């Protein structure tokens, strides 16, 4: 009886669209107590049901059976490699490929359907320039040459014997969120506009070990990296970064890297733009100057209103995004919701994320979910009691360097609208009276 009353009563009992800021103390404690009480009373109700069922094994006609069909027959046997529930088949990467070349394009991580900070490996975003090569492990070698004392090749079984380091890191394509430059707000799922970013545990050999073994010339400031795909994609990477924290990764989330993520070998460049993280890594050339490849001159550069273009914009600046509620989701009436999102910065840790429900007039700190790791997705949460009135939700990340994610108007004021890459402005979602969520510029 008590349970039924509690369950139908609007939790929290608040009337206005306010943030229940349990990160900052007093205003959140009532909300927490309510949640706690509901939880206790509901589990009490569950216990009562179980006892009642135990007293009468046979269900009465017309009643919901006390043991459903899947509790009265043996379940499925073991599987060699687990798959998501068939009921989750809608949680997929969204593919946006070149109409003439199927392997040229991107697929987006459905960030709006995911929780936590690790992207499921099969949902990690893809950017391929000409398809996914299927590389026989025993035929793959890594060549290091150029300004080195001795050019070397490394076979895959040999690389597997080197000391391994692992790190949880985001990778974000420089072109992620680029629809933000458009004049009208694109209406799509959050991940299908901002999901050229994913986060994995990457494990492999510190690149510096291999550079040392080859005797890389300390006065050569660049490293050219090239992949073994049909585009033989190459980029130039400053040697200081290569030595500082780059990995030659063999594993992603505990298993060998999958083909679409670079099997058998991928360069990992923490916090820097995705194109530098060369997949299917096959060649590293120690060089006195950058090679000025197509993907660091004609592409992955940002034209500014002056007519000049920004080049070698390596660091992915701080960004955040509310993944729930977000477009395509619908709030089921007024009441308490948890605003959930992701923040990340290529410069290090996220220091704080602020959330607004009134389009940026007022901000409150969100709670950061541990662990908060450098150059990794950080999950943030904030309880919100929605009054049912229209609202505009925003999140704003600040990283440990003090850099604050900019408003869209400020970013466009500085960079114009033709840069295409490195869009990291604050994202605004409008919630209307019906609970529908849409993308707005606000």
């Amino acid at each position, binding site marked *: 009886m008590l349970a039924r009353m509690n369950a139908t009563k609007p939790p929290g009992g608040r009337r206005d669209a306010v943030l229940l800021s349990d990160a900052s103390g007093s205003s959140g404690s009532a909300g927490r107590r309510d949640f706690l009480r509901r939880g206790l009373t509901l589990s009490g109700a569950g216990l009562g049901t179980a006892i009642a069922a135990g007293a009468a094994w046979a269900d009465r006609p017309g009643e919901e059976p006390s043991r459903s069909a899947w509790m009265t027959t043996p379940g499925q046997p073991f599987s060699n490699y687990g798959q998501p529930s068939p009921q989750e088949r809608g949680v997929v990467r969204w593919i946006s490929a070149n109409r003439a*070349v199927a392997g040229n394009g991107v697929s987006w991580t459905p960030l709006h359907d995911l929780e936590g900070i690790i992207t499921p490996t099969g949902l990690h975003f893809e950017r391929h320039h000409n398809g996914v090569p299927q590389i026989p492990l025993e035929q793959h070698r890594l060549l290091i040459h150029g300004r080195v004392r001795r050019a070397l090749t490394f076979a895959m079984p*040999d690389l597997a*014997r080197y000391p391994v380091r692992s790190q949880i890191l985001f990778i974000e394509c420089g072109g992620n969120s680029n629809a933000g430059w458009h004049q009208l707000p694109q209406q799509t799922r959050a991940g299908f506009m901002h999901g050229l970013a994913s986060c994995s545990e990457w494990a492999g050999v510190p690149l510096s070990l291999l550079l040392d073994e080859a005797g890389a010339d300390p006065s050569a400031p660049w490293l050219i990296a090239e992949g073994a795909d049909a585009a033989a994609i190459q980029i130039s990477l400053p040697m200081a970064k290569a030595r500082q924290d780059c990995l030659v990764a063999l594993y992603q989330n505990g298993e060998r890297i999958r083909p679409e993520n670079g099997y058998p070998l991928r360069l990992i460049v923490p916090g820097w733009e995705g194109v530098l993280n060369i997949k299917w890594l096959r060649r590293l050339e120690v060089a006195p100057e950058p*090679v000025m490849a*197509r993907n660091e001159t004609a592409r992955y550069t940002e034209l500014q209103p002056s007519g000049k273009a920004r080049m070698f914009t390596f660091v992915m600046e701080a960004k955040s995004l509310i993944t729930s509620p977000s477009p395509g989701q619908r709030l089921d009436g007024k009441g308490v919701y948890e605003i959930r999102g992701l923040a990340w910065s290529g410069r290090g840790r996220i220091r704080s994320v602020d959330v607004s429900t009134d389009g940026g007039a007022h901000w409150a700190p969100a709670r950061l979910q541990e662990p908060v790791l450098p150059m990794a997705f950080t999950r943030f949460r904030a309880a919100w009691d929605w009054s049912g009135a229209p609202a505009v939700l925003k999140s704003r990340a600040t990283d440990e360097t003090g850099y604050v994610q900019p408003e869209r108007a400020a970013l466009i004021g500085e960079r114009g609208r033709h840069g295409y890459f490195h869009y990291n402005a604050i994202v605004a979602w409008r919630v209307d009276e019906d609970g529908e969520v849409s993308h707005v510029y606000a």
Partner: protein
Amino acid sequence: MSMLERRCAMLLASLAWAGAPAQAPAPVPRLGQPAAPELVQRWNLSVYPDGRGLPSGQGTAAQGRAIYQAHCAKCHGADGEGGSGGTLAGRAPLTDPDPDQTVGNYWPYATTLFDFIRRAMPMDAPATLSEDEIYAVSAYVLYLNRIVRLEDRLDADSLPKIRMPNRDGFVGIDAQPPAGR
């Protein structure tokens, strides 16, 4: 030191080594195999702005026209106006309201054109054009942008000497492009 003491000391040393990996770098196997210069040369596709890495061979835009039409036009358009592939030709000012970024008005180095075609084009059959054909089709794309004439011969010597219109159009943010040239 007795034999027993020596054994104890060795044991302690090995335990200390095993227990404190952070204090000294872990030993690293050195398993790289020497790469023959011939292998390095065959694998190395990099072409630098100064022409380093360009192979022998030569071609003109006049020779490149047919190659372009056979391999490039279906994606990049008959005259480089773009299609499923990027727009290659055009010299509109980059300060226009919505400018196409082309080889002619955007790409800073002609060497990049050779490098990219050799490594990645055409997308349905990469690495099938001969070096003469790559020089010729590079010349044709430059011709579509009014940077070379139909009869200009491109080779390892002349290609790096082309000064692209947007050579000075870039500002390094986290690193600097090479100076000069």
